[in-house]
Every structure is written in structure tokens, then in C-alpha cells.
């Protein structure tokens, strides 16, 4: 055995120096031996066999077997409540299966907890990334990794930067997580899981709430990881995402694995196996716009981060206008100004010809403006109250005491009219996302001049999405105008008559949705192609 000469020399010199320098030289030796310690993941096969899980009477997972070879991007499709989350919770250690086996690399294993899962190489990226918003990126990154009393920030920082560079993520380790977008928080979580030695990654609805460029970056990252041998489970209800990314797709319906497909994917068949029936998109019906409902005149808005200068828009009765843009590009400011929730710095807002500039939300409401915020539970519904209570509150019934009979009747009628899966006595938080959104729509008063929506179908499955839009289109036919924000460009082009693109506070002139492609829209959102747009607008 030979001792590396430089090590010996260093040690030899060290013996002759004081204790302090001795210590320093030890540190240097340790540093040298650690300087290439980035994780390199060896591939791992994930094999689920006959997984069963019941909650009360519900068979959430019914004999599911799924063998995923290393390096595969496995898509898992299914509508809300199909059992996708249950299966992922079993695999990531949140819950135990009632029966069945998990085999990693052919070895049967038990996964005791999420922390145990990552020790065994299974990392999970949650839909709402499980991080600590008020803490720094670096602290989020290193927390959870074993180590001494004092965290080794220097090593963590170096590894973080090296990993981030590998995937071309630009994250400042000293920045605070509450300043990041959902997409960036996902990037942080992915890096953290890789650092912990993840060999299989589970992603739960990762494309919800992130922008198109971030989605592209995420997909590129996942493909790169899969090429390196990472096993990836991609849980989604979005067909187009699964089609773009996955090498294999399994479909869950009512707890059972009903379909397994490899490319090329037959979208019709996938949808059919998700819902057990055929679902078709409604054909585009061009609006026949009526009178001007809302006029934004030279509207200037600002908050601490963003300014919008002199935006102009006429919204006509019966038309749908989509607001596209990356999160925080100004579309929310604009929508809130239209609802009277944000007062403009300059310019005017007219509703139905009446100048409401600077007036409170209440005045806008009186003029038939309704606003449905993105956070359904925080701003839209009241947790703890039942559906009946909500209808009673929304209806402004006369008298101090509630007429229980009448309220119950009203609730029953609305529940069936809006196809809500729940009873009059269900509390709103017990409903699924799709049913909460239906309840919000059912709460809208009639008639309305203008409906403002933030992400009306975020997190909903295809069936609920179609249902919500059918209801909204009904409103349009009755003469309401709709303004909505969505991160889903397909949704914007599918349902809008005109589109407004926002980029860093700039507002595009209204584009005809029928004449715009997803690619074009994607570029505008990313800040490209605005010059020609300005030219065209000037021309027009």
C-alpha cells in the first residue's frame, strides 16, 4: 500500500507545527477528500405489487400492480379521486398499504415514513412544495440532511450551486423562499431531493401554477434525469403534459389500474379510460358581443413590484376575455382593479357606462360585477360553514332568523343544478376542488354584468373543467361578460374570444383568440415578439 506523497508531506509538516496549524492542515485534507461529493444516482427499479388501500367504504387502491424500470418517465393519469394520490402516498411512506408489496430493485421493502422513503431513494415533490417560505433557500436546502449541531453551510452552498448549474436553474441561495414563484420552489425541492440521493422521483401535479417557460424547463430537467437513469413518476390529470413527457402512461379509475399505454398515445382512448366514457370538447361558438359592460380607460396601476401604464380595454356583454401572462406580470393587478379591489393611480373604470373609479368593491358589486379569487378556501368560501349556510349568506334573505326549510330547499335545488357532489349539510372544506368551484359558481347572483375569475379551473380534472366552462358560457349567453386569468394557454385559447397578454406590466392590445397559436402566445408571455405586436397595433 502506498500513501499519497502530498498527504504524507502535509501530515509531516503538520507534526512540526503548532496544534492550530495541525488542525488547519487536517481540514485541508478533509476538504480535498470531499471536493467531489455530489450525489451520483445509480438506477433503481420501482415495482408495486397488488397494492390495496381502503378508507372506510372507499377502495382507494384496488389491486394495483405497476413495474417501472429505471430511467422511465411513468405517467399516472386519472381524474380527481381516482386513487393517484393514495398510491403515491403509499410509495412515499405517508401511509401504509393494507396489502401488497413494494419492491425496490427486486428487494421487497417497507417504507415507514417520508424520511425513510428518501433514505431508500424515493423523493416526492408535492403539488404545493413542502418548504419553509420565511427561511432562506440555503436553509431549506440543507434542513433534513443529517449532520452535526452546526450545519455545514459552506459545503451545502457549494453543492447547491453545482447542482443548480447542472440543470441551469438560477436560484440565489441567500434569497428567501417566500419571494420565489411556485416553479422556482419546485426547482429548489428537486435539487434538495437529488442532494439527498433520490433515485426515484414522484411529482404530484407539478405543472399546476407554473408558467410555460418554467414548465418547459421542468420537462427538460426531468428528461435529463431520466436519461441519467432516474425513475420518474409523473402524476397528472393533464393529457397534454403526459403526452409531451412520458414514456409510459397508466390510467387509474376508481382505484383500479385500467389502462397502460406507450407512445404514440391515443388521446381519445386515454380520456375514455379516465372517465369510463367519451368526453368531447365543446365546439367554439363565436360570441355576439353586445354593449360595452366594462371600459378601462388609460388605466394606470401599481403595487410595490409592478406598474401598468395606461391600459385600455372595452369588454362587451357576452364575450370572454382571457388574460395571459407569467405569474405576477400584471394580470392580477388588472383584474383586481376591474373588481374595485385596487384603486388606479390614474385613468378610469366604467361599469355599464357609470364611472366607478376609486369606489369600493361594494359599488362594483352593486353594478353586477362578481369576482372569484384563485384561493377558493381563503377568499371565496368560509371553512366550517355548510353549503346551505353559504346559500343563505349569498341570498340576503330577509329577517334576522334563517328560514331553515326555505334555505334547505334552495340548497338542494342549487346542488342538483350545479351537479355538486355533496349534501346541503356538507361543509365546504369537505368538498373536492372541482366541487368547491362549482359551489362558488352556484353562489353567483343573477343577473351579472361581469364575472372576473382567477384560475377558474386550476387543479380540476377534465370533466369538472368542461362543466365549469359550460356553466360560464351559459352566463355569457345570458349577457354576462367574462374576464379570466389562467396559466393554461390551451384553456385561454379554447374559451376566450379575445386575449390580453401581460409581460412585466406591459399590456398587449386585445388579440383575436381564433387567430393566435399557443406558440405565439407562449412567446409573448416570455417577452418575445412584442415589437411586431406594437407595429401591428399601430397599423390597425
Amino acid at each position, binding site marked *: 500500500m502506498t500513501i499519497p506523497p502530498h498527504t504524507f508531506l502535509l501530515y509531516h509538516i503538520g507534526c512540526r507545527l503548532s496544534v492550530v496549524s495541525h488542525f488547519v492542515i487536517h481540514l485541508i485534507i478533509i476538504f480535498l477528500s470531499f471536493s467531489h461529493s455530489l450525489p451520483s444516482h445509480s438506477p433503481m427499479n420501482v415495482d408495486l405489487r397488488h397494492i390495496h388501500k381502503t378508507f372506510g367504504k372507499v377502495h382507494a387502491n384496488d389491486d394495483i400492480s405497476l413495474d417501472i424500470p429505471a430511467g422511465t418517465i411513468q405517467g399516472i393519469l386519472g381524474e380527481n379521486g381516482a386513487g393517484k394520490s393514495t398510491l403515491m402516498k403509499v410509495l412515499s411512506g405517508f401511509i401504509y398499504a393494507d396489502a401488497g408489496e413494494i419492491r425496490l430493485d427486486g428487494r421487497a421493502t417497507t417504507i415507514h415514513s417520508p424520511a425513510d422513503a428518501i433514505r431508500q431513494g424515493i423523493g416526492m415533490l408535492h403539488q404545493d412544495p*413542502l418548504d419553509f417560505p420565511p427561511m432562506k433557500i440555503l436553509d431549506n436546502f440543507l*434542513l433534513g440532511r443529517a449532520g452535526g449541531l452546526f450545519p455545514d453551510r459552506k459545503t451545502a452552498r457549494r453543492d447547491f450551486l453545482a447542482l443548480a448549474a447542472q440543470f441551469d436553474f438560477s436560484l440565489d441561495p441567500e434569497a428567501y423562499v417566500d419571494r420565489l414563484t411556485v416553479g422556482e420552489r419546485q426547482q429548489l425541492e428537486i435539487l434538495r431531493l437529488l442532494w439527498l440521493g433520490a433515485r426515484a422521483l414522484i411529482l404530484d401535479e407539478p405543472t399546476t401554477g407554473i408558467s410555460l417557460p418554467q414548465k418547459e424547463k421542468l420537462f427538460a430537467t426531468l428528461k435529463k434525469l431520466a436519461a441519467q437513469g432516474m425513475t420518474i413518476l409523473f402524476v397528472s390529470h393533464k393529457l397534454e403534459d403526459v403526452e409531451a413527457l412520458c414514456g409510459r402512461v397508466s390510467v387509474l379509475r376508481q382505484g383500479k389500474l385500467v389502462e397502460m399505454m406507450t407512445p404514440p398515445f391515443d388521446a381519445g382512448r386515454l380520456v375514455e379510460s379516465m372517465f369510463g366514457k367519451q368526453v368531447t370538447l365543446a365546439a367554439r361558438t363565436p360570441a355576439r358581443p353586445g354593449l360595452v359592460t366594462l371600459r378601462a380607460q388609460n388605466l394606470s396601476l401599481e403595487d*410595490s413590484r409592478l406598474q401598468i401604464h395606461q391600459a385600455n380595454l372595452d369588454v362587451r356583454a357576452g364575450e370572454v376575455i382571457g388574460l395571459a401572462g407569467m405569474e405576477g406580470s400584471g394580470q392580477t393587478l388588472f383584474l383586481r382593479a376591474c373588481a374595485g379591489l385596487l384603486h388606479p393611480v390614474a385613468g378610469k373604470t366604467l361599469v355599464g357606462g357609470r364611472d366607478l373609479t376609486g369606489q369600493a368593491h361594494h359599488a362594483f358589486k352593486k353594478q353586477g360585477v362578481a369576482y372569484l379569487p384563485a384561493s377558493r378556501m381563503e377568499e371565496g368560501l368560509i371553512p366550517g360553514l355548510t353549503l346551505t349556510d353559504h346559500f343563505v349568506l349569498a341570498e340576503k334573505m330577509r329577517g334576522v332568523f334563517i328560514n331553515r326549510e326555505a334555505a334547505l330547499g334552495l340548497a338542494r335545488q342549487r346542488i342538483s343544478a350545479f351537479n355538486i357532489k355533496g349534501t346541503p349539510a356538507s361543509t365546504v372544506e369537505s368538498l373536492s376542488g372541482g366541487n368547491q368551484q362549482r359551489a362558488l359558481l352556484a353562489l353567483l347572483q343573477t343577473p351579472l354584468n361581469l364575472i372576473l375569475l382567477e384560475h377558474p379551473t386550476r387543479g380540476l380534472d377534465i370533466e369538472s373543467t368542461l362543466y365549469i366552462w359550460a356553466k360560464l358560457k351559459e352566463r355569457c349567453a345570458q349577457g354576462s361578460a367574462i374576464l379570466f386569468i389562467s396559466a393554461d394557454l390551451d384553456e385561454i385559447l379554447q374559451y376566450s374570444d379575445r386575449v390580453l397578454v401581460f409581460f412585466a406590466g406591459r399590456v398587449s392590445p386585445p388579440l383575436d383568440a381564433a387567430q393566435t397559436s399557443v406558440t405565439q402566445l407562449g412567446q409573448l408571455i416570455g417577452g418575445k415578439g412584442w415589437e411586431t405586436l406594437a407595429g401591428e397595433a399601430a397599423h390597425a
Partner: protein
Amino acid sequence: MTDNCQLTTANRQLTTMTSETLLIGLAGVLAAAAPVIFAVMGETFSERAGVINLSMNGSILLSAMGGFAVALNTGSLLLGFLAGAGIGALVALVVAFSSITLKQSQVAVGFVLALLTRDLAYFLGNPVMGQPGPRLQSLPLPGLSQLPVLGPLLFKQDLMTYLSFLLIFLAWAFIFRTRPGLMLQGIGERPAAAFVRGANVNRLRYFYTILGGALIGLAGPIYSLSVKAGWKGTISGLDGIGWIALSITIFGGWNPIRAALGAYLFALLQWLGLALQPILPGIPAQVLQVAPFPLMILTLLLVNIGDSEWVERALAAMPERQRRLAEKILRALRAKPPAALGTTFDSE
């Protein structure tokens, strides 16, 4: 009695105001703040973990009485302090058990405990009321106490006051500089995220609630064996300290150093209230005694000003470099409670 005594002392101090008497007064402020510091640090640990220990006011009274009684009967100051810590830990255990295991409201349980322990202290303390008992002696540090200004201010204190200085630093370093401290922030902020990182959330919450309770419990004997030595029942003048400590925890933004500044500010204002009376005879004594409270509320407003919309707007109008600096200062000032404070956690 004591108030009267302090008042005359203050009177004498200010009529013959020399720098030396001022120093003694300020040294007294540091000593008077020591029990508040212990209580505030205890509450900070507990709340950082997500558990509000609202029983603090009664807990301090009961441990003051208990610590005094034990020290009186055993003649051992050490046992007195240990008894105080034990009583605080026991009350915290009840809070922890009912909120973490039984998942009951922390506010309701804590409030009832605050009343119960206070009345228990008055009731059980009858036999030792008014008795002369042992008292912690001051411990001038050799050498250091001879320093000009700093000597009489910092180094002629008693042991618990020295420990209170140390505690501030240790608590701060633990929470913000160590790995378990980061996890402590994590379990109070987002327990689910701490759980996936391997933390046993509920066990840690038990640990920090009980540790916090022991620190709160130490505040009691620091009063009854040092700052306001003895046990005088309802006229001990301790009732209310716990509520003030609770608000200082909030003012302090759950940060030990800021909270300590709050505790010193409060002790200083109280001392000024007494010391200023002879100088400002036109102002009723009650005004000066009550003044610290609204002043504390004003501080809270100033500290959290960064969240208001007009400040954000003013910031946006500033040039880049100044804005960054101002944002940094405001960020440092801002006090946001741990997001999961007062909630229960289920791993599923």
C-alpha cells in the same frame, strides 16, 4: 410596601442625581428584566415549536410561591430554583398533552390554566406568606466588576442575572445557527415539511413546550428569591408579569435578541415611571406607571410598519440601492408569527 420603598429610593436617586446612582438604577433595570427574559425565552421556544403556552402568568406566580416555599423549608436556593423550573415544566406538560395529544384548543386550555395556577399559588402560599426567607446574593465578578461604568452596570449582578445575559445569546444561537434550531423553526412554520425531512413533529413539540415551561418556571423563583424576595400573596406585585412577557414575545417577533430588547425596554420604562415622579410632579403618578403599556403598543406598530401598503409604495419609488437597504431594515424589523402557531399536526 415595596413600591413605597422603591419610590423613596428613586426619589433619593433623582434629587441627588449623580452618574453613580444612575448606574445603580440602570443595573437595577437589568436585574429586574432577568425574570422577564427567562419567561420570554421560554415562551419563544414554545411558540417557535407551534405551541402557545398561555398559562404563563399563573405559571410564574405558582413557581414563585413554590420556589420560595421549597427554599424556605430546605434552606437550599438551588432546590428552590429547581422546584420553580419543575412547576413550570409540569404546567407546560398539561398544555402540551391537551393540545398535542388531545388536540384541544391551546388558547382555551392555557387561559384556564393561567387562572387556575394563579389561584393555586395564592391558596397554597398562605402558610409561607410574609415569612422572611433566603435570598440570592449578588456575585460581583472579580476583576470585571472593577471596570469603570461596565463594572457596576453588568458585573455586580446575581447569578440569575448573569444567566439571563447568557440565555439570550444561547437561545438566539440555537434557533438561528444550529441544525436542531432550524428544525425548531420548521416545525412551527410548516410541520408537514419538517415531517418529510425526518422530524418527529409532535415529540419535538412536547420537548420544546416543556423546556419552555421550565424556563418560564424559573422566572418565578427569580422574583421570589431575588428581585422581589419573599412571598406576599396577592400583594406580591407579580400578577400581570406573565401577560406582559407574552406580549413581549410577540413584540420580539419570536427572536430572542429582539425579545430581550423588548424586556429591557419595558423594565426601563417601569423604572423611569418611578424615577421621573419627583422630577415631574405635575403628572399624576398613575400616568407614569401606566405609560409603559401604551408605549409598548406604539413600538409594536413601528416595528411592523413595513407591511403597510403606503410604505411599500414609498419603497417602490426609491432608487435601487436605498430601496434595497430600506427593505433589508424593514425585513429585519418585521415580526411574523410561526405560520403553524396554535395548530395541531397529523402526519397524514
